[in-house]
């Protein structure tokens, strides 16, 4: 069987299993991962209780050393008192030498920008919503980017996977395809994307994967098949809340905007179909302005 390198690579891609999206769609697994996560963090808190399911384990408290009936510390037989005294003296000397070495080195090896005491405090995870609206937040645009009046979303927020789940509901992918390639691109700590672009990416991804499957199975030339598929998909309209462009919105801001999305802007021509199809390739390229 003659395969091109691209075809061989595409076959490798379809052989990935289990798909991340299938794992993410399993509510039981989700609960167990929550449980494991809680256990992992709790297990390393210095004195906190460890919860595993309904059970709670408390850390052991300090207990005094067991003493013998005669009241002395139990020691292995055959070791004389002078040996114990010598061992204790040697251990004390080692501890004192260690302390001296630490104190002498203090301030010499430490980088100047790190404080002597106190741990560094990493930033808290950001919320999904930024309260920032509008194209002005995007600054200058590059080719192929777009921005509108909608809110900017933190792509590093732990709430993002749940938000994506809600957007994916009702959209289907062909057998063997997963949302993984899209999610890998969208989950980007430290980056922001507008909510409309986020939704657009989800829908465009679903269309692209379905279009590719359609083109692969239906007879006729690829161009004609893409045209048939794309023409079946009507544009949709998003009505969103909008704050003043580039400024923080206030609660109860009455501003709204309407935006209609087209997978292909203007007439559906061979050129526009080619452009659309090339944007469907994996790794996925995000639509919108990533900031």
């Amino acid at each position: 069987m003659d395969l091109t390198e691209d075809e061989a690579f595409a076959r490798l891609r379809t052989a990935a299993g289990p798909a991340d999206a299938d794992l993410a769609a399993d509510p039981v697994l989700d609960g167990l991962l929550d449980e494991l996560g809680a256990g992992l963090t709790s297990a390393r808190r210095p004195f906190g209780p460890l919860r595993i399911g309904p059970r709670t384990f408390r850390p052991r408290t300090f207990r005094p050393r067991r003493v013998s009936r005669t009241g002395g510390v139990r020691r292995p037989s055959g070791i004389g008192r002078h040996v114990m005294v010598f061992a204790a003296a040697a251990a004390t000397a080692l501890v004192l030498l260690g302390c001296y070495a630490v104190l002498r080195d203090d301030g010499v090896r430490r980088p100047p920008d790190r404080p002597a005491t106190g741990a560094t405090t990493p930033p808290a995870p950001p919320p999904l919503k930024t309260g920032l609206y509008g194209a002005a937040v995007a600054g200058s645009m590059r080719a192929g980017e777009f921005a509108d009046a909608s809110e900017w979303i933190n792509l590093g927020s732990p709430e993002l996977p749940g938000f994506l789940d809600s957007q994916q509901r009702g959209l289907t992918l062909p057998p063997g395809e997963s949302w993984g390639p899209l999610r890998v691109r969208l989950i980007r700590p430290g980056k922001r994307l507008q909510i409309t672009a986020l939704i657009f990416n989800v829908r465009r991804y679903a269309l692209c994967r379905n279009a590719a499957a359609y083109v692969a199975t239906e007879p006729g030339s690829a161009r004609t098949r893409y045209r048939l598929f794309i023409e079946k998909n009507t544009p949709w309209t998003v009505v969103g809340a909008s704050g003043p462009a580039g400024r923080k919105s206030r609660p109860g801001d009455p501003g709204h905007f309407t935006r209609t999305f087209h997978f292909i802007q203007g007439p559906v021509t061979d050129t526009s179909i080619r452009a659309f199809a090339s944007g469907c390739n994996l790794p996925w390229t995000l639509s919108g302005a990533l900031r």
Partner: protein
Amino acid sequence: MNAAEARSEALYRLHRTAILGYLARRVEPREDAADLLSEVFTTAWRRIDALPDGDDARLWLYGTARNVLANHRRGSTRRASLTARLREHLAVRLQRVDEPDGVTAVHEALAGLSEPDREVLTLSAWEQMTPAEIAVVLGLNPATVRARLARARVHLRSALATHTPATR
């Protein structure tokens, strides 16, 4: 909850499924991925202050998962009691059923490739990583990854030619 715990939990929530998938696609039996996942995030929690910022933290987790997987293959991963229930679920959920011939052929072809070829190919095809991202995970130069990927694609193509059902 202090900031380190908050960051650790956020990283876990964001990347746990992707890292679990990465591990489950590469380990046998697949339920061992539960222990490996625990190991990866325990390491991340232990070294939370040293973790890079932004998207590099995700790549750092993949790099750690790769090392954990290598240790596991050397037989040095312990089963944790915390993961028992997750293991049980994965054992049922990820049970291998009869796969189509095409998929089996791909796995056979993949098994015949060298470890470096297999690694760049699967990171690119299954984890959807760019050569620059793969370079971070593997600790290589991006140019080296691109060259290795190009070579691996040629090897995959010829390996698949000998493992497709039609030629049997």
